[in-house]
């Protein structure tokens, strides 16, 4: 079923197009609540800036790779994502989970679902990157080239092998990477919604 975009989809488009005029509006409108959330819960202004930036980059990736459509207002969706990211960061630093002083009280189920989808997307992507590094060796070298250059004909030319050989090696290496991802302990908890 095709999702109907909310009018705040303009912010997603602005991320895709690096439109600083619209992104400026986004910061003016929404950064205040995130600063409040972080600074009232053991964080600094720099922490808030990092959380906002990293969350926006995740949304950008999801839009770029999965054609993400925003079906609800940006406000609560963005707030939820930043809040979860900040809690994770606090946990990693060993700071015990705090009682978050909410800046937003009305969060709908749809916003919760969309935020969870983005969160899972981010964790899956990080797992893929992590396993690619773990793969290492000639396989990583070949896949790095294949991902960067895209066209396998060109990859084959660069490596001085035939197209058929390059394609076969890529399929074997990507197959190996897929297996490593599937066998990792966190993979099963990261199923898409």
């Amino acid at each position, binding site marked *: 079923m095709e999702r109907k975009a909310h009018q705040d989809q303009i912010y997603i488009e602005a991320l895709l197009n690096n439109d600083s005029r619209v992104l400026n509006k986004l910061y003016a409108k929404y950064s205040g609540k995130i600063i409040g959330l972080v600074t009232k819960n053991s964080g600094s202004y720099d922490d808030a800036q990092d959380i*906002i*930036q990293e969350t926006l980059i995740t949304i950008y990736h999801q839009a*770029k790779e999965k054609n993400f459509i925003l079906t609800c207002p940006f406000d609560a969706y963005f707030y939820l994502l930043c809040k979860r990211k900040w809690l994770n960061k606090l946990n990693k630093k060993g700071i015990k989970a705090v009682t978050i002083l909410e800046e937003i009280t009305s969060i709908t189920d749809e916003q919760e679902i969309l935020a969870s989808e983005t969160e899972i997307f981010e964790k899956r992507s990080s797992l893929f990157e992590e396993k690619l590094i773990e793969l290492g060796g000639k396989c990583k070298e070949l896949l790095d080239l294949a991902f960067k250059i*895209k066209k396998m004909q060109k990859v084959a030319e660069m490596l001085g092998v035939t197209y058929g050989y390059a394609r076969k090696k890529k399929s074997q290496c990507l197959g190996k990477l897929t297996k490593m991802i599937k066998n990792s302990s966190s993979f099963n908890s990261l199923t898409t919604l």
Partner: protein
Amino acid sequence: MKKEIEYLIIEKYLQKELETEALLNFEKKLKENVDFAKEVALYIEVNNTLTSRFSNYKEENDLRNTLEDLGAIHINNIEKVIPEKEVKVFSLMKYSKYLVAASLVLFASLVWMNNDKNSLNYNDYANHDTLELVVRGNNNTHLLKAEKAFNTQNYVLAQSELELLLQEDATKVELQLYLAICLVEQNKFELADSILTKIIKGNTIYKNKAIWNLGLSKLKQKDYPSCKTVLTSLPKSADDYTQAAKILKKL
């Protein structure tokens, strides 16, 4: 063996290179075999995600620069407004001169401490030694490229050349150290910190350099408590001890 053949068929499907009959068989299997369908979906997802990450690196970097500028405008501006408000509160309490004096001293020291921390800038301390890998008679192009890229601050290229060199010999600690520096420069802290921690746990001549660079990484992350802990462990004999002491003084 069977799996390898399947992956090749998936790759051919992905590249739209399956002949009509093979394509029909493939699509039939996709419909009937749930496990196979899941395998294909994951293979394509991994391919598309990583292709997008690698090929859109420049675009992502441009967006990051825009967001950093906007953050500096919107967030730093708010930060500067707050102390002014607090000063107004103090001015209302002038009838209680001792309390005012004490508060002002406290306030001034807090501002001084904050300014001191805020003046700590990673770039002021990250004066990396040049990378010198190439020796006479050695024509390894990756060595040449890694060295040139690192010494001209092209950390993205240096990272990928160092990774290729480490694939040839993963035990070279010097390469690991410089790879970690490239990662810190690109804000890829998690992997950088884990490489540096591993070097610190070992007993090589690069140990002190790894401590110093882990301290710099924590400084760049504005994780001041960790920065302090790491830099405190740097021995006096280390090359970077004086610089570390300057940071510790401000912390």
